[in-house]
Structure formats: structure tokens, C-alpha cells
């Protein structure tokens, strides 16, 4: 009996030794390389963006009609008459972005402070889904809202001869509402990450709720808030459908928010909406504008990430 079990255990040990020897597992290797390829795939997307946009943009700059210097000095963008000054597209993008941020930053900060410092759990649990709903509504719906609600409202308030049917103000205001949930949720994350002990220390010193929130919690979360604001700006610059619907067609060099003016993104959408023939100046110009847009938003996003990484206050 004992001999038998000993024999068996020796046998088992031998077979285990056999199993444990490192053998090539081809299945595992194949799967791992497939997974690596999936991970690496996103690099192709970025390379594709840079390569394709760069290639066509280069063709654009090589066209005889396009003079590189004119792009930054002329104030007209009319591809059909060979005028390429980026300023009108740039100013309207700036106007919509500034208006959007004037709405989204104060409101977004206020809502975030309310959610993280003032609201009780019940209010939070109703408000957060509302914000999620706002964030999940497609931008074209906001475009419809801008054109059919905000524009008539502005025209009623400021007068029909002051406010045109298509204007950058209504697009900017609605864009502010669109970006509000983004800024709120990022800011609220930053505020919630500030440890309880800091607040309690402030209360212990006799600070009021407002003083605690504004003088202790907000400064402690400042890097996160700055990151949220920058991401919001980047989102506003790249936002397309609201401006395509409500801001008007045709580049217009103006800072007046009540007249129609086409933004960078709005221009790209309108130009490519028709039947666009390849290798035309229109076709190449959207790539040049796209490349510009890509680098601007990428830079803003990278700055935002750097701010979070570099200036984050780490608490234990």
C-alpha cells in the first residue's frame, strides 16, 4: 500500500516536472501579438491623421494661388477668387469660443462647487444624471436649439435689425450649455479629490462654508480646474454642428457677435457638404484647415494633461 502510493507520487512528480518545463505556447504568442496590434492600432490613426492631412495640406500650400504669407495677413477667405486669409475664420471661432466659455466657466464652476460642497446626497443623485443627459445629447440637437430658440430670443431682446438670423452669439451661448457638463464633471472630480481633512481644518478655524470652498478647496483643486477649462476651450474650438447650423455661411471678418460668420469647423462642413471633387483647391483647403485645427486642439489637450501631471497637489 505504502509502496504503491510512493510509486504513484514519484510518477506524478515526474510528469509534473515534464509539464513545468517551459515550452513554447504558440497560441499565447499569437494572441499576445494580436492584442499588441490592437493597442498599436491607435498609433496608426494618429499617423494617418498627420500624414493624410499633412500631405493634402502641403499640396494646398504648393498651389500657385496660395501665398503662405497672405494666409496670416489677408482678411478674406474666398477660395473661388483665390483669396486665402485665415483671419475671418479665426475671429469667428474666437468669438464663439469666448462666448461659450463666458457661459460655461462660471456656470460650470458654480455647479461643480454646488455639487461637491453644498448639495446633499439626494440632490447629487438627481443632478448628476441631468448633467449626464445634457452631455449625451448630440450636438446637432443643440444646433437646432440655437437656431429655433436662442436666435429668436436674442432677436426679441436686442432687436431684429441688430441681430441677424444667423449669428455667432446664439451659437456661442448654446455651445456654452453644451460644454457646461464637461467642465462641471471634470471640476467636480478635482474638488472631490481634495481630502475631507482640509475642509475640517478650515471649519475648525472658524471658516464659513463659502470661505472653505473658495479659499481652501478650490485652490487645492486648481490644477484640475485649469485642466477642465482648457479641455473646454479645445472642445469649443472643435465643435462643429452648432456653428454649422446657427452661425451662418460665408466667412466674415468681424468681432460683432450678432452677425453671421463662419468658423473654421463650420467652413469645413459647408465646403465638404456638396460634391467635392478631389484635387480641387476646396478639397485641399479643408485638409490645411483640418491640420491647423488638429494641432491647436492637440496642443490644448497636451497642456491640460501636463497641468494635471505637474501641478497636482498630492495628498496622502
Amino acid at each position, binding site marked *: 500500500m505504502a509502496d504503491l502510493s510512493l510509486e504513484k507520487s514519484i510518477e506524478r512528480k515526474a510528469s509534473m516536472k515534464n509539464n513545468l518545463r517551459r515550452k513554447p505556447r504558440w497560441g499565447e504568442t499569437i494572441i499576445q501579438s494580436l492584442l499588441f496590434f490592437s493597442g498599436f492600432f*491607435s498609433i496608426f490613426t494618429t499617423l494617418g491623421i498627420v500624414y493624410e492631412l499633412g500631405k493634402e495640406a502641403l499640396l494646398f500650400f504648393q498651389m500657385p494661388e496660395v501665398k503662405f504669407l497672405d494666409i496670416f495677413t489677408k482678411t478674406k477667405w474666398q477660395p473661388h477668387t483665390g483669396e486665402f486669409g485665415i483671419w475671418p475664420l479665426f475671429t469667428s471661432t474666437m468669438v464663439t469660443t469666448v462666448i461659450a466659455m463666458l457661459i460655461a466657466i462660471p456656470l460650470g464652476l458654480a455647479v461643480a462647487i454646488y455639487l461637491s460642497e453644498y448639495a446633499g446626497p439626494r440632490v447629487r443623485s438627481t443632478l448628476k444624471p441631468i448633467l449626464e443627459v445634457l452631455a449625451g445629447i448630440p450636438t446637432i440637437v443643440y444646433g437646432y436649439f440655437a437656431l429655433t430658440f436662442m436666435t429668436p430670443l436674442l432677436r426679441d431682446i436686442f432687436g431684429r435689425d441688430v441681430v441677424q438670423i444667423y449669428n455667432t452669439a446664439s451659437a456661442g451661448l448654446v455651445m456654452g450649455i453644451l460644454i457646461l457638463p464637461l467642465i462641471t464633471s471634470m471640476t467636480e472630480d478635482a474638488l472631490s479629490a481634495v481630502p475631507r481633512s482640509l475642509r475640517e481644518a478650515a471649519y475648525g478655524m472658524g471658516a464659513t462654508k463659502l470661505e472653505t470652498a473658495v479659499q481652501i478647496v478650490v485652490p487645492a483643486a486648481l490644477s484640475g480646474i485649469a485642466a477642465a477649462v482648457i479641455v473646454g476651450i*479645445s472642445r469649443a474650438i472643435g465643435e462643429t454642428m452648432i456653428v454649422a447650423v446657427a452661425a451662418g455661411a460665408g466667412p466674415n471678418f468681424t468681432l460683432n457677435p450678432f452677425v453671421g460668420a463662419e468658423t473654421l469647423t463650420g467652413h469645413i462642413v459647408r465646403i465638404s457638404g456638396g460634391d467635392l471633387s478631389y484635387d480641387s483647391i476646396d478639397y485641399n483647403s479643408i485638409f490645411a484647415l483640418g491640420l491647423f485645427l488638429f494641432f491647436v486642439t492637440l496642443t490644448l489637450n497636451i497642456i491640460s494633461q501636463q497641468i494635471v501631471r505637474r501641478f497636482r497637489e498630492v495628498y496622502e
Partner: protein
Amino acid sequence: MKEKTTVEGFADNLAARNRRGMVWQALIQASTVVGIIALIALMLNIINGAYGYVAYEAKVDPDTLAVNGVALQDQSQEQLVTLLQSTLSSGAFKKLENEKPFASRSLEDVYQLVVDRIVRPQVVGVWSLWLSLTQADEIRATVAQENPDAELDFVSWLNPGFITRPQTSEPFTAGVRTAIFGSLWTILFTILVAFPIGVGAAIYLEEYASDTWLNRIIQTNINNLAGVPSIIYGILGLAIFVRTLEPLTSGEVFGLVDPTTANGRTVLSAGLTLGLLVLPIIIINAQEAIRAVPRSLRNASFGVGATKWQTVWSHVLPNALPGILTGTILAISRAIGETAPLVVVGASTAISFDPNSPFSKFTTLPIQIYQWTSRPQDEFRSLAAASILVLLVLLLSLNASAVLLRNRFSRRF
């Protein structure tokens, strides 16, 4: 200040400080209310546009089309076809016959054609729901005065017919069936591309990748791609899928080339473009879900001798699946609502036939909304409002299923 450490000094100041606290708290709460009001205004505005009075004139009075006292809507299919044949030019009739033989058309379809081609209702006025409710009498008076022949009806622009009819250029017969099918076809390819690659990438980054410069670049790159404006993906899709890969995306290499689907502006191109767009979102969400699976589960699996892939496949993935699916559904609902990239990729402006292959021309719900919103006539704005309701219901049910999935199947460790 130095000697004012007495209780009275503190209390003096306190009243003002508390008052300031109250004022700011009120302001902060007011901002929150503004946000809620914005959402309510958005919803009410859409509903306001989707219902209301509409006044229309028929080019041909339907009563005159009655045969032997049988009203138009009660006539048989043969009678209606005869009517079409006798009224329309033979060329127009043949064209309809070629599109789809009358014998195989349904009665509703033929009736729709009669309304479309012969009765031809023309909209003369549209009123929003708010005006229709508050000023019904004035509206009736105006219509009676200015268009005595016009009929005034209270309509819901969102009705079963609107959802099941194909797209047309006439506001009364236009529907969103073409657009709904277009959206579904497009999303199918988006999921087919983005889900496997996205989950694969997330598994790689969370389970396999060591902390090397290459893997850090991959991770940073994914985070950056998530912030790229969607229109850039549209331009990329135009360059790669529509132009460079045209033989593939137009179906030419499969010998399926359809003369009507010119130049790669197809469902397939649109789906792939949206696939690239949602890929980073799916990866980031899936990574979070995988990260939430505790280390101990993996160690237990390794402890009984499982290989890496066996551990991932049998232990990590099943536990992370609800989270992965929730994240994917949210990404998909983002893709369904996307408009800008599809305009750039080249959605068709007017097609009345449902897409039936990856190589069909396409239009989607958001594209339809965009086109109807961009038209100056009020009746098209109303159609846009009705299609927004369709889109929002679709998105809401998707989001609700995501929430259900999260609540029902997610495990806490």
C-alpha cells in the same frame, strides 16, 4: 486686527461673512438652476416644434377624385393604379413602375403615391405647439382670411407614418425610415471594427503591457485621440476610406459595383470612420472596467496553473464584461449622434431607398436633422423636431440599457 481676537470681534465680522456666504450660496444654486432650465428649454423647444397646427392646400381636391361615390381613401388598389395611369404622364408612370412594379406595391404605398403625385398638398402655414394652444382662434381666423381653400389640421409631426415612410422631399410624406436604417447599418460596421480592436487594446494595455516607452506612447496617444474634434476624423475618413480605399469601400473589388453608389461614399466608409472616432473612448472605458477586477482573482488563477490568456479569458474578461459593455454602449450612442464627420465623409442628401448592403449610399438620422434644420421653411423645422425626438428616444433607450446593465451585472469586490 492684532488685538481683535476677542469673541465680540469675531462675532462682528461673522454676520457679514455669513451674509456673504448666503449670497454666494444663492448665486451658486441659481447657476445650477440655470443649467436645469437650459435642459428643460431644450426639451420643450423640440416638443414645441414637433406638434402644432398646419394649414395646407391640395392642388387637386381629393373629393373630385371620388369614383361612383367611393371616396379616395376607400378605393381599391386597381382603381388607384388606374387613376395614377390616367393622370400622370406615361413617362412618369413608367418610372414608378420601374422603381417597383405596381403589382408588388402595397395599398398604402399606392395611396401614398396618389397623395404625393396627384393630390399634392402644399403647406401654407405652420404653427408651433405653444401658438397652437394659446392662439388657436387667431390662427383659424388668419387661415380663413388668407387661404380660404386651405385645410387647418392639428398634427403630430412625429407619427407612425413618419417613422415607417422613406425620405421624400414633400413635408407631408417625408419619413425617417431611410435614415434609421442608414444609422443602423453604419453603427453595425462601427461596432464590428471598434469593439474587438478596442477591447483587445484595453486588454493589452492593462494585462500585457510593461512600462516601456512604446507602451507609454500608446497610452498617451489614446488619451489624446479621445480629445481630437470629430470633424478631423471625418477628414481622415474622406482621405483614407472614401478616396484611397475606394475600390474596397465602393465594393468594386467584390464585383458588386453599383452604378448609383459612386465613389466610396458608402455605409462602409461611414461606419469605419465612426469606428476610428469611438475607438479611443471604448479603449479608455474598457481599461477602467478591466482595472476594477481585483489582483487577487488573477493571482488565484495563476496559482492553479492557468496561463496568462486563460486567466484573462476565463477570469478577467467575464468580470469586466458588464463594465466593458456599458462603456461600449455609451461610445455607440456617441457615434449614433455624430453628424459632422459623416457630412465630410459624404452622406447623401436625397435618397429614398433603404441601404441594403455595406456599399449603399447612406443618410443617417443626425444628417437628416441637419438637412431639415438648414432649410428655411417652417415645415422642415417641424420635421427636424420630430426626427430629433426619434433620435433622442433611440439614445435614451440605449443609455437606459447601459444603466440597467451596470446595475444588474456589475459585481463589487
